[in-house]
C-alpha cells in the first residue's frame, strides 16, 4: 500500500485538520484528496482559448512519443503543443502581473488621495522614503511640503500603469549591465497595463504562434510586475505606512485568544489592515468589547496582509495560506476580514459551521454568502470601526466547540533593503559591504530567496522548512517573503537563535550582526525588495556587475498561484536561477520546458528549474551558487589575515 501523504508538518495545522474532520467541516486538505489535479491541464496541454476546443494534447504517459505522434498533438486550429503550453504559461504571467499591478494601482490611488487631503485616515509616515523617490524621479524638493512632493511622486508612478511608449521608471534602478541586456532583447516594459493587455492579445486564438516569441513577451510582462506594479506598491506603502524595521512578534494559531474578540485580517492590500491595527487599540473599541463580555480585541493576520501589519505594527500572524479555513475551525474567530487575492471561497462554508463572520471589504472581491462591508479610504477610521464593531457584536455568539491549538512561535520580521543596509553599515555609512565581504571570504556561501505559497498537493510547510534548514546549514543566507516566511517562522527559523542551525561561517556573521540566518522581507509584493537587495549587492562591488553574476538563486517550493509564475519569471528575466517545486506547468512540451530551463540562461543569465524534493532543490541551489563563485574567482575561501606586530617584524626580516 502506498504511504499516505503527510498533510502538514505543523502540529497546530494537524490538530485543526483533525478537529475539522471530526466536526464534518470541509477544508482544502480534505478537498484535495477527492479533487485530483487534471493531468492534461497540469502539464499545460489543454487549450480553451476558443469555442472549437477545449483541445487536449497530452504527452503520452510512460513512454517517449514518436515523431508522428508529436505531429498529431495539435488543436483544431492547428496550434502545436508548444504554442498551447507557452500561451498557458504567458497567461499565468499576465494574471499574476495584473494582480500585483492592480494592487499597485490601488496603492497609487490612495497615495494621491492622501497627498491631496482626501483620505484623512492616512498620512506620510516615512519622509525619508518620499525624499528618496523625489530624488530618483527628479521631483523638486526645495522647501515644498511633503504633500506637495507626494503629489508629484504619485502622479509619475501612477503614469507607469497606462504608459504607452518609453519605459517604466524603476527599471533605471537595475544594474547598468542588466538594463543593457533588457534593451538588447527588447523586453523593457513600456506600461504595466499595456504589457498585460498585449500578453492577453498575443495569446488569443490565432495570434502569436511562435513559442519563443510568446515567452519573450512573457518575460517583458513579468518585468512590468517586479520592477513595476510590485515595486510601486512596496515603495508607496513604505511612505504611507513606514519602511519596515525589525519587529518581534509571534506566529501560529496559538496567537488567538480564548477570552478576547479575535479578528483575523486576510488578503493583500494593507490600507484596511493598517487602519484596523490602529482602531483596535482605541479605548472606546476596547470598552465596547468589554461591554460584550470580552477582555479585549485581538487582531491577527493571515497571508500577505499579515506580513504587512506584522512588519509595521508587530501584529501577530495566525497562519499562512493553507491555515485560513483552520483558523475558522478553532471556533474562536469572531470575524475574518478579507480583501483581495488568495481568499478561499471555502471559508464561507467553513464559517457556516461556526459563528464566524466572513467580511469582504473590497469592491473587486465579493464572495457569495459573506457579509460585504466595503472599505472606504475617504472614511478609513469609520470603515474600520464598523468592521470591528461587527466582530465584537458577534462575540456572544460563540458556540461550545472552541479549541485554540496551543502552538505559537517567536519571530523577528521587517528586514527591508533599507534596514539591511543600515544594520550592516550603520547610520554614517550604510552599506552592503560586510555582506559582500563575507560572501567573498566564503563565510557566507551565497544568498537564496525562498518565497511563495502553500500548496495542498504537497506536505504543508515541509518543503519550505526542510529546504531552508539545508540551505542555512550550508552557509547560504536565506531571504524570505510571503507564506514561505511564515512556514519558517513557525519552525523557529526567523529568530537570531536559529543561527545555531546554520553552518559555522553564516553562524559567525549572524552572531556578529545579531540577525537571524533567515530574513523576513515582507509580503509577496515585497519580492521587489529582493530585487533591490540583489542590485545593492552588485553596486557595492566585488561580486560582478550584474545580478546574474551573484552567487544567488530563488525558489518557490510550494507555489500555487499565478502571481508566483509572474514573480518567478521576473526573477529569471532579472538574471536569477529560479526553481519551482510542487508541479511544473509546461511539462507537456519538451521544447517549451527546455527553452525555459536552458535557453533562457543564454538570454537573461537566469533560467527556470523544477524539483519537488527539498534536499535536491537545496543541492541545485548550492551547485549554482558554487558555479557563480567559481566564475567570480572566489571559490576558495580566503580568510583575511590581520597582521600583528610580531608577524610584521617577521615579514620585514625576510
Amino acid at each position, binding site marked *: 500500500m502506498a504511504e499516505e501523504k503527510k498533510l502538514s508538518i505543523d502540529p497546530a495545522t494537524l490538530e485543526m485538520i483533525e478537529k475539522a474532520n471530526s466536526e464534518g467541516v470541509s477544508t482544502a486538505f480534505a478537498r484535495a484528496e477527492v479533487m485530483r489535479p487534471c493531468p492534461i491541464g497540469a502539464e499545460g496541454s489543454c487549450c480553451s482559448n476558443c469555442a472549437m476546443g477545449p483541445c487536449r494534447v497530452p504527452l503520452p504517459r510512460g513512454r517517449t512519443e514518436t515523431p508522428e505522434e508529436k505531429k498529431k498533438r495539435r488543436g483544431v486550429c492547428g496550434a502545436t503543443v508548444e504554442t498551447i503550453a507557452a500561451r498557458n504559461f504567458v497567461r499565468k504571467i499576465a494574471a499574476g502581473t495584473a494582480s500585483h499591478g492592480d494592487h499597485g494601482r490601488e496603492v497609487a490611488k490612495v497615495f494621491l488621495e492622501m497627498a491631496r487631503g482626501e483620505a484623512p485616515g492616512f498620512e506620510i509616515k516615512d519622509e525619508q522614503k518620499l525624499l*528618496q523617490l523625489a530624488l530618483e524621479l527628479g521631483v523638486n524638493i526645495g522647501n515644498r511640503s511633503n504633500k506637495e512632493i507626494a503629489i508629484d511622486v504619485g502622479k509619475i508612478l501612477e503614469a507607469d500603469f497606462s504608459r504607452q511608449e518609453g519605459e517604466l521608471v524603476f527599471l533605471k534602478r537595475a544594474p547598468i549591465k542588466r538594463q543593457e541586456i533588457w534593451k538588447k532583447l527588447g523586453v523593457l516594459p513600456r506600461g504595466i497595463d499595456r504589457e498585460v493587455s498585449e500578453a492577453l492579445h498575443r495569446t488569443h486564438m490565432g495570434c502569436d504562434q511562435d513559442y519563443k516569441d510568446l515567452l519573450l513577451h512573457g518575460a517583458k510582462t513579468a518585468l512590468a510586475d517586479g520592477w513595476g506594479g510590485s515595486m510601486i506598491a512596496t515603495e508607496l506603502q513604505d511612505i504611507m505606512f513606514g519602511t519596515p524595521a525589525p519587529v518581534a512578534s509571534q506566529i501560529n494559531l496559538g496567537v488567538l485568544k480564548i477570552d478576547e474578540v479575535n479578528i483575523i485580517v486576510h488578503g493583500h492590500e494593507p490600507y484596511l489592515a493598517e487602519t484596523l491595527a490602529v482602531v483596535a487599540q482605541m479605548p472606546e473599541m476596547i470598552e465596547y468589547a468589554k461591554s460584550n463580555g470580552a477582555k479585549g480585541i485581538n487582531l491577527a493576520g493571515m497571508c500577505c496582509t499579515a506580513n504587512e501589519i506584522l512588519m509595521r505594527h508587530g501584529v501577530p500572524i495566525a497562519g499562512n495560506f493553507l491555515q485560513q479555513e483552520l483558523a475558522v475551525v478553532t471556533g474562536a474567530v469572531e470575524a475574518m476580514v478579507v480583501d483581495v487575492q488568495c481568499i478561499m471561497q471555502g471559508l464561507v462554508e467553513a464559517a457556516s459551521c461556526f459563528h464566524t463572520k466572513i467580511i469582504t471589504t473590497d469592491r473587486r472581491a465579493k464572495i457569495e454568502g459573506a457579509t460585504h462591508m466595503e472599505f472606504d479610504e475617504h472614511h478609513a477610521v469609520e470603515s474600520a470601526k464598523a468592521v470591528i464593531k461587527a466582530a465584537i457584536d458577534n462575540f456572544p455568539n460563540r458556540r461550545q466547540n472552541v479549541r485554540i491549538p496551543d502552538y505559537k512561535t517567536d519571530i523577528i520580521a*521587517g528586514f527591508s533593503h533599507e534596514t539591511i543596509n543600515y544594520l550592516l553599515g550603520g547610520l554614517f555609512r550604510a552599506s552592503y559591504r560586510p555582506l559582500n565581504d563575507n560572501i567573498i571570504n566564503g563565510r557566507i556561501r551565497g544568498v537564496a530567496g525562498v518565497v511563495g505559497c502553500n500548496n495542498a498537493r504537497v506536505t504543508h510547510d515541509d518543503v519550505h522548512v526542510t529546504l531552508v534548514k539545508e540551505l542555512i546549514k550550508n552557509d547560504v543566507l536565506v531571504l524570505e517573503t510571503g507564506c514561505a516566511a511564515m512556514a519558517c517562522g513557525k519552525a523557529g527559523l526567523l529568530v537570531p537563535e536559529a543561527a545555531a542551525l546554520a553552518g559555522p561561517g553564516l553562524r559567525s556573521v549572524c552572531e556578529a550582526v545579531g540577525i537571524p540566518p533567515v530574513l523576513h522581507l515582507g509580503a509577496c509584493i515585497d519580492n521587489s525588495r529582493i530585487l533591490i537587495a540583489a542590485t545593492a549587492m552588485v553596486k557595492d562591488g566585488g*561580486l560582478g556587475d550584474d545580478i546574474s553574476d551573484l552567487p544567488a538563486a530563488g525558489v518557490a517550493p510550494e507555489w500555487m498561484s499565478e502571481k508566483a509564475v509572474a514573480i518567478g519569471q521576473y526573477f529569471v528575466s532579472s538574471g536569477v536561477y529560479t526553481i519551482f517545486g510542487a508541479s511544473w506547468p509546461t511539462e507537456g512540451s519538451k521544447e517549451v520546458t527546455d527553452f525555459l530551463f536552458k535557453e533562457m540562461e543564454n538570454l537573461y543569465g537566469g533560467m527556470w528549474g523544477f524539483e519537488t524534493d527539498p534536499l535536491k532543490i537545496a543541492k541545485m541551489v548550492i551547485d549554482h551558487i558554487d558555479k557563480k563563485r567559481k566564475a567570480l574567482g572566489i571559490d576558495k575561501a580566503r580568510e583575511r589575515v590581520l597582521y600583528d606586530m610580531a608577524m610584521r617584524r617577521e615579514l620585514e626580516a625576510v
Partner: protein
Amino acid sequence: MVNKNKVEMKSAPGRDKVEVLGETFEPGKPEGEEMGKWRQKLESRQEKLKYLETGERYYYSKDWYGSEKRKNPA
C-alpha cells in the same frame, strides 16, 4: 542628529590631538514595538537627504558608483 554625536580627542602620530567621532550607539536596549525602528533617528529633512547621499550613494551621490563606476552613470 549628526551634531549630537560624541567627539573624542585622540593623539595622532605626527600631529597633536585630533578630533575623532566617539561611540555612536545609544545606551540601553530598545524594547517593545519601537525595538527596531531606526529611521526616526534622522530628524530633519537635511539629515535624511544626507543619509541618502551616503547610505544609497550608488544612486544619489555624484562621486560614487560602486562597481559600476563609469563615465556615464545610470
